[in-house]
């Protein structure tokens, strides 16, 4: 393989991986803060896809507005769902299994609501920007560069908020010890809702960015959900930073692996990575061994 082609594949992998990072980062944030494995994560991705389809492809609203609106709408729906289901379940004993069942149920309901309201047709969203950047032999569509830039900026933003704001401090405290956080005066229920909405918002953002490359449909969330699980395991359960690095790493491994085999091997490659990690390093590549 010529070196420029390899380089292009790696770049493609980073772009794809940045989407995995958005998905996995949200999932890790939710798991890390409230210990809920969110099986409905793919459906918040799907909602983001549909919203941007209606706003941008349908109503021709500029992406600068359509994308934030779609993300906020999906996050608001997620907050409402969390409040009316998961928050109530978590006040009871034995919520660990109950919440897994509940998120599965939410996933099925959201898929069917989307099917009912918007139909089973695959919808396409046009590129936000046309054109291709060419540097020497390496070519990259502007759309893909945009995806990468948006993903990296939003993940950095979330990381900074978690690190340096009062809200972020409260989220980290809640993640480490819910009871102690309450004693500090933190309304952990409010933090849980906000974190769930934030995680779902990241998933929706990934969909708004990917929508021009893949078709919008009620089932579009599932493949990305599975990838997000791989990413979260790869990065160490519940670690936001780990999920970002794991996401990008998985994207690169997939892209390079596919260029050496063929596109059908994509999932084989990523699940092999998953199995290898669970086998050899169950606490994840960047996580720490349980204390």
């Amino acid at each position, binding site marked *: 393989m010529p070196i420029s082609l390899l380089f292009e594949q790696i770049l493609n992998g980073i772009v794809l991986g940045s989407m995995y990072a958005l998905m996995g980062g949200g999932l890790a944030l939710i798991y890390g803060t409230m210990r809920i494995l969110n099986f409905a994560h793919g459906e918040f991705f799907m909602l983001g896809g549909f919203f941007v389809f209606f706003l941008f492809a349908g109503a021709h609203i500029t992406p600068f507005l359509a994308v934030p609106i779609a993300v906020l709408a999906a996050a608001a729906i997620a907050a409402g769902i969390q409040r009316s289901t998961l928050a109530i379940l978590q006040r009871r004993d034995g919520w660990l299994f109950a919440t897994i069942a509940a998120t599965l149920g939410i996933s099925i309901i959201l898929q069917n609501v989307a099917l009912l309201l918007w139909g089973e047709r695959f919808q396409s969203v046009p590129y936000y920007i046309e054109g291709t950047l060419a540097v020497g032999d390496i070519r990259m569509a502007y759309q893909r560069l945009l995806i990468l830039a948006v993903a990296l900026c939003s993940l950095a933003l979330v990381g900074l908020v978690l690190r340096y704001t009062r809200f972020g*401090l409260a989220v*980290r405290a809640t993640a*480490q*010890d819910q009871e102690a956080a309450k004693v500090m*005066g933190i309304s952990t229920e409010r933090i849980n809702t906000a974190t769930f909405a934030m995680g779902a918002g990241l998933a929706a953002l990934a969909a708004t960015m990917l929508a021009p490359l893949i078709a919008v449909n009620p089932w579009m969330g599932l493949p990305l959900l599975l990838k997000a699980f791989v990413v979260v395991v790869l990065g160490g359960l519940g670690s936001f930073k780990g999920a970002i690095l794991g996401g990008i790493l998985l994207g690169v491994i997939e892209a390079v692996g596919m260029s050496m085999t063929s596109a059908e091997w994509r999932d084989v490659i990523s699940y092999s990575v998953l199995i290898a990690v669970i086998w050899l390093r169950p606490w994840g590549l960047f996580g720490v061994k349980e204390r």
Partner: protein
Amino acid sequence: MLEVSGLNVKYGDAQVLWDMSIKVGAGEVVAVMGPNGSGKSTLLKAICGLVAIHSGQIKFEGKDISSMPAHNMTSIGMSLVLERRRLFPSMTVMENVMLGAYAKHARDKTKERLAWVEELFPIIRERRDQIASRMSGGEQQMVAIARGLMSGPRLLLMDEPFLGLSPKMVSAIVTLVQAINKRGIAVLFNEQNVQLSFGNAHRGYLLESGRVVLEGAGLEMLQNETVKRVYLGSH
């Protein structure tokens, strides 16, 4: 200052606190003593709203707080130091201490409180950037108490503050509790050891299987025949 009356607490079908009534006056140090499973931790958690109460009333400075959510506790002037410290393990000492001042009302006074707390606990300044989980148990307890003081409580509750500490550390914590009390802060703590509890309190309560069986001044409790016979093993 704190008045608990007729408190009943159940975990599912099992009742753990029966018709419990206790009081803490302003500026008092009160000890709750009892063997494992006597309900002394549940009592503190129920006062703070961490455990739901079945019936009864909890009043703080005349206000009914029976159904107040736990996260409002610091804003009314109460603070709890949880059993086994419960510091946020991957945060630094300073982050832990600052979280103690998270409540809205405490924010403005953060600076002066920090200065006061650092004076009481020099370890806060010396180890400010150390990760909390890498400290010894006694050091962690100091940080936990400091964190509990950052909201400026008038009543400090401590759940088994001496648990698992070396004798030297225990006496250091006792001295600190006295210093905190000298500043006019009332303290309610529980402890399994008779000397440690009643010996360091103005007043004390003895619990057995979820009921108050004896109450009185700390020194009287130490002299009490039942206490001596059952808990000090003298005949």
